[in-house]
């Protein structure tokens, strides 16, 4: 287990929580992003994630360094899974420990916002009647979605 990693197997949250815990940590926050079945009335069958692995791990480590600078005393671990994920599977886990809780919440939310901005990972949604790579751009309208 590395503190910033792309994995292909199901994510075991506990090992990331254990990694960030230490005797001066009074608070741990964990975020998991899970595959949701229904989005705006459209049913997702499953998702497929792809990453530019070495760059993604590097960018996640950079986000961790940003967090430690903004919130001194936090310890961070981030993992993102790639490949085919089924409904409710964990796509991403962010574990943050801190002496006090406020920083643990703020830093954790910062991490997922930054991941969605800069980490080279892509999600493809597979529906009953089609599939599409998801991204910020709207040039490629959704297939089979209202």
């Amino acid at each position, binding site marked *: 287990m590395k503190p910033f990693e792309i994995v292909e197997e199901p994510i075991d949250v506990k090992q990331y929580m254990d990694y960030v815990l230490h005797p001066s940590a009074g608070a741990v926050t964990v975020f998991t*992003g899970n595959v949701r079945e229904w989005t705006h009335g459209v049913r997702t069958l499953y998702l497929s*994630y*792809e*990453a*530019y692995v*070495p*760059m*993604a791990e*590097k960018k996640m480590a950079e986000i961790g360094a940003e967090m430690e600078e903004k919130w001194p005393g936090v310890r961070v671990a981030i993992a*993102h899974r790639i490949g085919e994920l089924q409904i409710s599977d964990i*796509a*991403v886990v962010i574990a943050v420990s801190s002496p006090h809780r406020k920083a643990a919440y703020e830093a954790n939310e910062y991490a*997922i916002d930054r*991941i*969605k*901005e*800069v*980490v*080279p*990972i*892509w*999600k*493809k949604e597979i529906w009953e009647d089609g599939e599409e*790579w*998801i*991204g*910020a*751009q709207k*040039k*490629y309208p959704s297939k089979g979605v209202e």
Partner: protein
Amino acid sequence: MITLKYFARLRDVAGKGEETLDREELTVSELLDWAEQTYPGFGADNVQVAVNEDYALKEDTIRSGDVCAFIPPVSGG
């Protein structure tokens, strides 16, 4: 020789995940123009380029030996 990597939608558009380009030097902007002309529907306006695993600016120079990745809008999380 420059290594080019394609991900997600761009992998579908290019029909490959990786190839090499036989050039000594070009800018990021020139590389994007080349991709746009080579692969119809590339959509270079919405594509960033990473050179050796760091985001590059349009005016940055790419040299032989570099690894370039075309990065469509990310959607992790």
